């Protein structure tokens, strides 16, 4: 869920309470992104922090959503498959957990738009 400024017609993710363009000129409205976007740049991580060690190697990318905002997220495919300009769509996945018995964190990762979720 993000926000949309009706005056500037700009979309924001993460959501903003105030539009940085017009500031308080318009009231922001909620907007649900469908999450499709394009890979702007990417890397494959071989050496991660302790929380992500078990997932290496994994792809991380900056993705530009079709409405304009950019975000950082993992792309689930092989290092050979990912490329700049690749189309992706969101997938709800486990991001991590606090040890064997702790809380499991869920969130958005991305998969190639042509592949299966």
């Amino acid at each position, binding site marked *: 869920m993000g926000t949309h400024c009706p005056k500037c017609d700009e979309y924001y993710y993460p959501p903003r309470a105030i539009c940085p363009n017009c500031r308080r000129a318009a009231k922001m409205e909620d907007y649900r992104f469908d999450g499709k976007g394009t890979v*702007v740049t990417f890397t*494959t991580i071989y*050496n991660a922090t302790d929380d992500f060690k078990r997932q290496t190697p994994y792809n991380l990318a900056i993705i530009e959503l079709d409405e304009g905002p*950019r975000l950082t997220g993992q792309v689930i495919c092989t290092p050979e498959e990912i490329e700049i300009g690749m189309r992706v769509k969101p997938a709800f996945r486990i991001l991590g957990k606090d040890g064997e018995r702790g809380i499991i964190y869920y969130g958005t990762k991305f998969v190639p738009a042509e592949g299966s979720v």
Partner: protein
Amino acid sequence: MRSVSIIGAGCTRFGERWDDSLRDLVVETGIRALEDANVSGEEIDGLYVGNMSGGRFVEQEHIGALICDCAGLSRLHVPSTRVEAACASGGLALRQGVLAVASGYSDVVIAAGVEKMTDVTGGVAADALAAAADREWECFFGATFPALYAMIARLHMHRYGTTREDLAEVAVKNHFNGSKNPISQYQMEVTVDKVLNSPLVSDPLRVLDCSPITDGASAVVLAPTEEAKKYTDSPIRILASAQGSDTLALHDRRDITTLDASVFAARRAFSMAGLEPKEVDLAEVHDAFTIGEIVAIEDLGFFDKGDGGRATREGLTAIGGEIPINTSGGLKACGHPVGATGIKQAYEMVLQLRGEAGKRQVEGAKVGLTHNVGGCGGTAIVHIMSR
């Protein structure tokens, strides 16, 4: 506003200093800087210390008071302030010191930086450093610091034709310079082949593209220029001190391959100093990763956008080249104790401008620039100085 000069500088050897605590490092560098400046405790009326993460690395906060205490200045109650801007903490401490003296609030000020990083494991250190990125919107999804710079590198290569070898050339040059610097963490040279065959950290960046985990401290002493000659025959004048900010997250930037904070700070600094980039004789820039140096020499105005790789490949940034970059060995080879780096850059510039840089001396160096970046460009600090 008063003109400000550096009247003394000191630095510890950078490296894995297993036998020395954060306190030991501070005392070592402090004594060197004060002796170099010929000042005693009574004259000091301000202290700024850059430190990124004492809390994570040695479980010690309140570094301002600690440093004052270690320096033997606590009974004089000298005001001491810790400054934090991630890897730009040192540069920011220098800037705070300059502002204090320039404003007239203080006369003789120490600007120092310190980081003790080897008391924790690599994973903990990586996570502490990742706190300089956007914890909620980058790190939560698995971003690391090398990963963010790797994404800058990937797009720079895609857009401008910068090659994997160009990145390696930065490491080769900086290791060569570092091998001539007695305080440098790495005293060995590397070859392009060695860089290209080192383990992948975050593709396309490899181990030898990354600055190391380092212990170290550095300090400079500042005074009004009009009084500087009282202390030293060779004061180094600060011609400009500038700072820029940008979004914390890399993905929110106007352009992924440009650090606009650096562009902003550099333009401001050049305008304050009344100089053009081509009038600078040498620079210490923030090469936490090899791509960082290529982007920096473009953003600072030494080369056109996209031309940093070619300039490096052709040797224009080597000692003896058009504009020598990172004569100290840079963060890459000299080491990167994050809070100390910005001050070490000033220390190297003091040596160069005094003509005391030994085997790595840039002949006839008159004007130098230092460039310190926090995170992957959320903060940038630029200083220009001259003899």
